[in-house]
């Protein structure tokens, strides 16, 4: 018990919570944007891998760090366009298209990494983002500007969704595409825009891993974080504020299991602690399921003129 209090009283713990939460916040907001217009994007796991790889590769090749983030966003947008073409343009299964994109983006990234570095065993490193030491806010000043960006994005997206005509159109397309179309809103254009923007965020979420949390690209470094974002959106009932809360809560338990595992007197095998994030995700899905208010048109393809 004193152990637990020691952990919680240590600022380093809260620094870790915020760091672990950052890619989850970005990814969850990305999924949220797509799903608000009615499109599931299971490409996220692969898009995060691709963003982590391309962003890092750009910086390794000499680009500034922010350009690397831009490259990761652009990579996400390309895969987002593909997903939009398949699911909005051709009305194919959103599940299968997303999984296909995850497999493709992961395979392409690993292939690209091996072609670029055929013989290396230790991954080459870059100089990652530096913490914002100039900021007079404790804990936050141990983070990099990407974390600040993620935190500011939450109110920004909430504002767009609930306070602007664009947000109204986005939500309407996700709830009732027929009605949106009759109001002169293009369902296809809105969905495509949301998928591309959301996928850009997924790419940035991946780049946080290579450009801020670590300084190199590893295989399996995304390791299910994308799927957890998909679960977090349900947990958050498709609301940006709750998405932030969910990501922080989740990161809290993840950081806690890491500390407990390191504290030496762990009673259980370390794998049990590593299972916790996934178990928690499922638990969250089950707890929220009954009252979850899915966007009514989620996973329903829309064909103009067909009902």
């Amino acid at each position, binding site marked *: 018990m004193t152990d637990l209090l020691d952990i919680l009283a240590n600022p380093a713990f809260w620094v870790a919570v915020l760091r672990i939460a950052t890619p989850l916040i970005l990814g969850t907001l990305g999924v949220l944007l797509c799903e608000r217009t009615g499109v599931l994007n*299971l490409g996220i796991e692969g898009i995060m891998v691709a963003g982590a790889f391309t962003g890092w590769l750009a910086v390794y090749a000499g680009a500034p760090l922010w350009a690397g983030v831009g490259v990761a966003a652009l990579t996400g947008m390309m895969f987002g366009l*593909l997903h939009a073409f*398949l699911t909005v*343009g*051709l*009305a*194919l*299964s959103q*599940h*299968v*298209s997303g*999984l*296909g*994109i995850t*497999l*493709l983006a*992961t*395979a*392409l990234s*690993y*292939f690209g990494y*091996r*072609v670029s570095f*055929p013989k290396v065993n230790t991954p080459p490193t870059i100089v990652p983002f530096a913490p914002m030491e100039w900021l007079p806010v404790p804990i936050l000043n141990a983070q990099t500007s990407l974390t600040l960006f993620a935190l500011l994005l939450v109110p920004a997206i909430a504002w767009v969704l609930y306070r602007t005509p664009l947000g109204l159109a986005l939500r309407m397309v996700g709830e009732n595409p027929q009605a949106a179309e009759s109001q002169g809103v293009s369902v296809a254009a809105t969905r495509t825009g949301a998928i591309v923007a959301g996928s850009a965020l997924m790419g940035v979420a991946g780049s946080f891993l290579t450009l801020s949390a670590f300084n190199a690209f590893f295989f399996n470094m995304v390791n*299910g974080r994308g*799927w*957890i974002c*998909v*679960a977090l959106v*349900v947990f958050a009932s498709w609301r940006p504020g709750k998405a932030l809360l969910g990501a922080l809560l989740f990161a809290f338990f993840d950081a806690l299991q890491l500390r407990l595992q390191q504290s030496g007197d762990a009673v259980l*095998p370390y*794998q*049990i602690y*590593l*299972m916790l994030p*996934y*178990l928690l*995700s*499922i638990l969250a*899905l*089950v707890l929220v*399921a*009954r009252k*979850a208010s899915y966007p009514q048109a989620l996973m329903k393809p829309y*064909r*103009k*003129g067909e009902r």
Partner: protein
Amino acid sequence: MRLERRHQSSRAALVLAPVGAVAFTMAVSALLVLWAGAPVGRTYALLLQGGFGSVFAWSETLTRAIPLILTGLAATVAFKARLFNIGAEGQLFAGALAAVAVGGMHGGTGFELAPWVLFPLMMLAAAVAGALLLLGPALMKNRLGVDEVVTTLLINFIVLLGVSALLDGPMKDPAAMGWPQSVALQPGLELGKLIAQTRVHTGLVWAVSLAVIVWAIFKYTVPGFDIRAVGANARAAAFAGVPVTRTVVWVALLSGALAGLAGAIEVAGRTSYVTLDMSPGYGYTGIVIAMLAGLHPLGVIAAGVFVAGVLVGADTMSRAVGVPTYIADVIVAASLIAVLVATLLTQYRVRMK
């Protein structure tokens, strides 16, 4: 751009669509070969040769195809009823563990039974383990409306960590020099060789037979009809008197059992013990195979052999010309997307306006 449904699509188009899509994928992937600085023609020739060019190549391809056909079938059964089972990877490991738990825990804790009694028990345990693992997500989908894709995916991670914990602890083989590796099966429980001097085992007969059985279930039985009806339109099926919930439960049990058997057959036919790297993602590749086969159980055999050939051939090719083996994964994933589009074009006409 809009889509118009075709009144009918020709049989030739349905068969040619996947073939054309794969050819298209290979053409596009040639750019990656060029990026890796290798000659395209020679690389692809080596890929095909390595997968299908000799008796040895065929034997390796067929060996690799066995688990892929089974996980492909698992995905086919589930997807037919629109139960998106993405958890075949976890179910495979659950099946493998159950097989070793029944067939390997001899001496003290285990069963002193003759192999001919123990073998069916082992396979049954694996099927049950896989089936039970999918039952939870299927019930959560049915009762609570929790999306099964996310739950089955998350369970994969949990199972793999669980396997890792067991291989470090209770199920670790003390004779494995510290490697995380389970105890081995008792002698007499291994599957025999199909071709002497190769690794192809009689698991191939199991895989092909199960494909035929699944095909017959769909084609000739009432539950098979129910599954297709639920997949086509669950609400209409319920209205027509199909027991939707019960059907989905049966689908989950059958799909999970097939994936569980994939694990047991890998153990009995190839490794004889469980390790964490016994499956390089067979569960996920099975999804691609099911889609390549157009969810046709017999097509799964062809698709499984094709994908296995690409994966095996890539190893040979990589050693010869140095193109990373990941090109096989790119080809498989891109084929999936290309086949989806090609199949759609057999059903719809695209009008630009």
